[in-house]
């Protein structure tokens, strides 16, 4: 026993070692791990990111070179820190802490020391660079914006984060990726595909040639340019008009569903999110929680649509055969729900379809709404029919545009009210506010514009989109070229459109007529409330306007929504009118109107609820 002890221990150790080694070298070994081998260097060849042009081929987004100062800590030789810091424009403490970070990340791998130098700084630095051993300059490509607008549509790119790296093996730390807007939606088209070269390093960290003769290498694939449907000039002009105002504007070409302009106010210059100041600027924008410049009101705001909604109720009633254009309702400067009088500003009297629309008579549409429900035995049935018609206009659900964000809006259905009031405990009169676009209905400016386009087309729409063509092939997703038909027959649109045209002829927007252009529109004035410190307060009405022009052969349909802009014809109506003139005629003849819109701001309205003092709303003076 005692003679065998040591021998058996030696044999046992030998077997244990060989067992462990077979686990490591035979079981855990995989030929692929060569790709994670720190001694195989991968060199990426980045293709240029695709340019973005507007619908007329005007450049909106291009690229510009930027220069990162890189460091490989273990190769750094003693240097004149003071001079170097001066050239880089950082102080010594910052320099030392950045060097420390780089060393902690890896002494042998390059780290970014100072990102994105401007061309001027680069020129100064480049001459002296040879004095600073261990540092080098890495050229990168940044976005260059040939416009100060459309930030919300174009989106921005930024460095990939850990989540991206985890979710998509394509990306490598330090690469850029589309974060919002078109940059995100069409990331793969714009980005192209980087080329990879595998370089075998020898023991002295020198390149000794391609690994496996380049069998695993790939060539870069160019990013494609894309053309978007925005009209650069219209977009920029709209943003100018939005100066000092909050709200959203969407303009669509009805016969294609192409989005001509998509404006959110307040907005920001897309160039702010490029370059060295990027993160500082981003924080500033992101943490502005009151005016929310990064929140795209044109597709995310979901206010009640207000009176433009009346046109749809009229269409539904015509389709259901419960009214004809001559059906009349009397307005008592309002209408009764039970014994309560609900107000109306139309001036009172007997209204038919035409004057009901152009005078925006609440009583008329309350009557119309009741008739739709009265046709059916139960409110539930009536609700289902009404819902079906409404939703055929692209309301109450995501539209499916090619932008990465969006909001569904809301078209309430019977389940919604059953939950709210209880089954069988509500009727058409309970939900009568929906007849005039108040109450539970909600829609984004995009949905309103799309609805207007459907009216302009007399019964169909294309899913609104911003992509016009990709690269040379031009082909875009077929879902954007397939018409969606509403449930309303073509013939019922004419009387409603006539009413909308008369809004300009005799109605609420008669001051906003454009000489030589027939417009059909509808004003909206939306009551709204907010909570500040737990206190519910009513604010000045939102100003809403939808319009399309020309009435025959429409080229543009748009929705303008201005927060606290008071009645529809005021801010929203003015802006809509100017945009239509700009788009169709190319220039503005009504200079006084234009000047007024460019100069007037609503900052005083927005300051009211936060002033801490009592304030008036819906002031006559403006």
């Amino acid at each position, binding site marked *: *026993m*005692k*003679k065998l*002890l*040591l*021998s058996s*221990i*030696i*044999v046992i*150790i*030998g077997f*244990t*070692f*060989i067992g*462990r*080694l*077979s686990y*490591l*070298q*035979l079981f*855990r*070994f995989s*030929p692929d*791990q*060569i790709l994670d*081998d*720190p*001694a*195989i260097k991968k060199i990426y060849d980045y293709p240029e990111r695709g340019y973005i042009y507007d619908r007329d081929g005007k450049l909106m987004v291009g690229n510009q070179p930027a220069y990162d100062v890189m460091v490989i800590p273990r190769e750094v030789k003693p240097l004149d820190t003071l001079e170097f810091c001066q050239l880089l424009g950082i102080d010594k403490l910052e320099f030392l802490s950045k060097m420390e970070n780089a060393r902690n990340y890896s002494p042998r791998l390059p780290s970014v020391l100072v990102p994105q130098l401007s061309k001027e700084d680069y020129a100064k630095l480049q001459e002296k660079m040879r004095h600073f051993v261990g540092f080098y300059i890495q050229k990168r490509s940044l976005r260059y914006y040939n416009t100060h607008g459309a930030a919300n549509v174009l989106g921005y790119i930024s460095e990939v984060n850990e989540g991206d790296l985890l979710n998509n093996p394509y990306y490598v730390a330090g690469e850029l990726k589309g974060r919002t807007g078109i940059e995100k939606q069409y990331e793969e088209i714009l980005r192209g595909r980087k080329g990879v070269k595998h370089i*075998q*390093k*020898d*023991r*002295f*960290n020198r390149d000794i040639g391609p690994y496996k003769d380049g069998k695993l290498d790939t060539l870069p694939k160019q990013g494609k340019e894309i053309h978007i449907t925005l009209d650069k000039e219209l977009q920029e002009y709209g943003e100018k008009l939005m100066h000092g105002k909050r709200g959203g504007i969407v303009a669509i070409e009805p016969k294609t569903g192409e989005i001509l302009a998509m404006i959110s106010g307040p907005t920001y210059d897309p160039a702010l999110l490029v370059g060295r100041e990027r993160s500082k600027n981003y924080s500033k924008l992101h943490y502005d929680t009151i005016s929310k410049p990064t929140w795209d009101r044109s597709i995310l705001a979901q206010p009640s649509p207000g009176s433009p909604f009346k046109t749809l109720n009229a269409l539904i009633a015509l389709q259901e055969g419960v009214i004809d254009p001559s059906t009349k309702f009397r307005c008592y400067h309002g209408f009764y729900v039970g014994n309560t009088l609900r107000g109306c500003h139309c001036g009172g009297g007997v209204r038919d379809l035409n004057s009901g629309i152009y005078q925006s008579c609440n009583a008329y549409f309350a009557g119309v709404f009741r008739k739709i429900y009265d046709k059916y035995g139960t409110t539930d049935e009536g609700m289902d029919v009404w819902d079906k018609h409404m939703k055929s206009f692209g309301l109450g659900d995501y539209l499916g545009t090619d932008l990465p964000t969006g909001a569904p809006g809301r078209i309430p259905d019977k389940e919604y009210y059953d939950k709210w009031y209880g089954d069988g405990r509500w009727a058409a009169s309970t939900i009568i506010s929906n007849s005039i676009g108040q109450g539970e209905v909600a829609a984004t400016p995009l949905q309103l514009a799309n609805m207007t386009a459907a009216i302009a087309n007399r019964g169909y729409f294309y899913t609104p989109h911003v992509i016009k063509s990709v690269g040379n092939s031009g082909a875009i997703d077929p879902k954007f070229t397939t018409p969606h038909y509403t449930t309303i027959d073509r013939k019922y649109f004419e009387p409603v459109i006539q009413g909308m045209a008369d809004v300009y002829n005799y109605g609420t927007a008669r001051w906003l007529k454009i000489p030589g252009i027939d417009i059909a529109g509808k004003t909206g004035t939306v009551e709204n409330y907010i909570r500040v410190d737990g206190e519910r307060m009513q604010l000045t009405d939102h100003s809403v306007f939808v319009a399309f022009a020309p009435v025959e052969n429409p080229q543009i349909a748009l929705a303008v929504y201005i927060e606290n802009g008071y009645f529809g014809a005021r801010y929203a109506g003015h802006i809509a009118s100017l945009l239509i003139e700009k788009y169709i005629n190319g220039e503005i003849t009504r200079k006084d109107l234009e000047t007024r819109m460019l100069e007037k701001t609503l900052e005083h309205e927005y300051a009211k609820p936060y002033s801490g003092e009592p304030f008036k709303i819906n002031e006559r003076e403006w």
Partner: protein
Amino acid sequence: MSGKGPFGRIDWITVILYALLVFIGWTNIYSTSLTDQGTSIFDFSTLYGKQLFFIGLAFLGIIFVLFVESSFFERFASIFYVVSIVLLLGLFVFGKKIAGATSWYDLGFFNFQPSELAKVTTALALAKFLSDIQTDIRNRRHQLYALTIILLPALLILPQPDPGSSLIYFSLFFVLFREGFPLYYLGILLVIVVLFATTLMFGTVWVVIGLVTLALLVYTFKKASLKIPVLPVIGAIVVSTLFSLSVNFVFEHVFEQRHRDRFVLWLSLEKDEKKLEEIRKTIGYNTYQSEKAIESGGFFGKGFLEGTRTKGDFVPEQHSDYIFSSVGEEWGFLGTTTVIILFSIFFLRLIFIAERQKSDFSRMYGYGVISLLVFHYFINIGMVIGLLPTIGVPLPFFSYGGSGLIFFSMLLFIFLKLDSNRLKDGI
């Protein structure tokens, strides 16, 4: 001296195995330390050049050993031992600090590490003491003397600090076991290690539950005729429980964080997979890199001087303690198993030689040599392939280092010299 001269009856099989191991070791040192300036293998500014020089010195040492009268080592064993103890003590005054440990004398051209010398002299002294006609291994007092001979240098080396080398001396217990030292001491040692590990892994409560269950099982299934007294068993459980409790205390309050980290890594004590992985890559960086390097070698290895991780200096201390990872990367599974088989045959050959000695001194010294070498080999490779916690001991004949190579060689060749004289002893 026998008629055939100093090389006459030397065991050539061992010598060839020894030369093979030294040669393989050196090629790997060459591979890990080749720099772009290096031109000649005799360039003494490089590690492989220096190691070549050390191999030359070791050769001179071997020649010296072989020419000396073999009774010389036995006769002067006690004096050598005393000298090496004095040298170890002298370190407290004259020692040179390298990498945080005061283990060296600076001899100008060469840093001399007395703890390596002490391994040889302790093995000699132990053999000398045990083989003395008056020594009885079953005598408690003599057991105590033997323990003192082993533990004195270990205690002196511990505060350098060099716990790795200190631990090595415990291997000499195998000499005692071979000579009739009761085996249950080994049993107790094993139980202590198991209790220590299981307490850290599962906690005291589960350890106690396990022990009680074990005891009950033994009583339930034992042969009726077998009488096991109850009291000692209960006593053993109580003692084990107390030990288990003290493990927690020692772990939390006596160990430093770096010690704790090693056990956390070794026993995978951290339950959070992500954190454990993090610890592996930071605190366990050396082992992580060495495992990765070995793993990447696969079956055939990447080839001599082709190890990408070896070349990139990814494994720290690869020329010394982690030399085996270079074998793993460049020579693959074929290389590592070859080295392990070589070592195993080498050790078994030495045991065979030890057992054929007629002189007690030679056999005991032989066992000392084998125990020391096996222990180094076990701890070093165990650490490099991630089976054992990080303990810094060199791989005999492989690792870079002059003192190590020279004294391992002398350790071995003194034994071979004694062996070559075995026939004379018998007369």
